């Protein structure tokens, strides 16, 4: 077991999260759970995720995880949001197992964002 609680990736992303912020006019979701709080915003471009931004209140792993998600998903098809899983992020960031619940809050937020994106793309959904 390392005495160092954060790997270099966490330190780098926590120290300079390039995707921190808001997107005016974008689709935004907010989730608060497990003592963590996160807002994700996206702007779509021809069915793809044109831009992603986040705001987060939580531990360094949680903030770094939000940044990893934004980095990875910008430019990808919006439909990919539905398949988001935190397992790769957990590995990349060497998240301690006791923090799994916190990182799953990000997963909830991404799923919620995916749902909002689908609702926006298919305004008739839910009327039947």
């Amino acid at each position, binding site marked *: 077991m390392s005495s160092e609680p954060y790997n270099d990736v966490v330190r780098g992303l926590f120290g300079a999260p390039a995707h921190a912020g808001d997107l005016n006019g974008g689709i935004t979701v907010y989730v608060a759970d497990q003592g963590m709080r996160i807002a994700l915003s996206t702007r779509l471009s021809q069915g793809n995720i044109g831009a992603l931004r986040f705001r987060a209140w939580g531990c*360094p792993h949680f903030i770094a995880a939000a940044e990893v998600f934004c980095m990875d998903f910008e430019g990808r098809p919006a439909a990919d949001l539905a398949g988001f899983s935190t397992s790769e992020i957990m590995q990349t960031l060497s998240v301690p197992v006791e923090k799994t619940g916190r990182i799953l809050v990000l997963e909830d937020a991404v799923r919620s964002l995916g749902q909002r994106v689908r609702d926006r793309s298919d305004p008739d959904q839910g009327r039947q």
Partner: protein
Amino acid sequence: MMSSNNEILYLDYAATTPVDKRVAEVMASLITIDGDFANPSSTHKAGRRSTAHVEQAADRLASLLNCQARDLIWTSGATESDNLAIAGAAAYRANRGKHLITMPTEHNAVRDVFRALENQGYEVTWLAPDESGLLNMDAFEAALRIDTQLVSIMHVNNETGVTQDIAAIGERCRRHDVLFHVDAAQAVGKLPLDLATLPVDLMSMTAHKLYGPKGVGALYIADRPDCHIEPLLFGGGQQRGLRPGTLPVHLIAAFGQAAAIAADSMARDLEHLTSLRDRLWQGIRDVPGIVRNGDADASFPAILNVSVDDIEGESLLLALEPLCVATGSACNSHDQEPSAVLRALGRSDELAQSAVRFSFGRPTSAADVDFAARRYCGAIDRLRALAPQQPA
């Protein structure tokens, strides 16, 4: 003072201090074939020379505390001293009664001994502090009973720096014929202590909080009728059988040297530490939502403990790097609960987990404190800017 590699700014002197170079020289001179390394229990000449170092150290520590050298027992540190004092005194007086008094704001080394004694059938009254961290003297007086045998209240709280009035507490203990133990790990060598006049029966201390080495401490046992303890260790008979085991001469001599230096520099240190603490507080007091933990008027100058609204403690600690400070965040300590001390002061879990303890030492400069203040304010601003607003 930044470390030599400029990667850290150490502001955690309440956790431990670096060994003073003059102390390290004494220690190094007593462990090799060229020095007085012999077992002080040996009766030959080399052993007697080692004994002389132990006796000189006891004289130096006794001089610092204004007590008799024979009233000091060497231990491995304050934790062992606390265990020996509390469990030893409780055992010695068990046939008279099994009621004990302490506070939930004590160090774990005290709290956990009382919990163990509770499991052995002792009854412990845990006196909550007021919101400033101080003992309520009326509640204390009311808690004293005919069967009370021991009271243990620390002098300077290691987390908040709150300083209890041990003279007043001890006076009440004497009136009720109750032994009074003081964990003075944070106070010895930093605050003037006169054991010739203070009504204290047992006092725990350690070298590594006053620029001495880790691994050595002492327990003061007042030379008074009925002030006795049972030993916890057996074998060898050293130190009147109260704490047997071969004495680590190099550590004890180093403790003595650290005590002598502390006696010489205490007034200067106190002035220096007070100015640093006040300077840091001035630098951060305008941060929105900041609260100072512990009574500002009854607080030890080397410690400043603050909490702040709506900041996650673990992220704060990382954002504060290269500052080395202590935190109330559970994720960065071995304890998975927010600080019991801060909760006892009535702080919410959220405020307790955002707590940061800055503690200063002789090497700390005004420039260090100014850097720390800027770093703290900047970290709070950055984390707040990163936080989401709850939707309306």
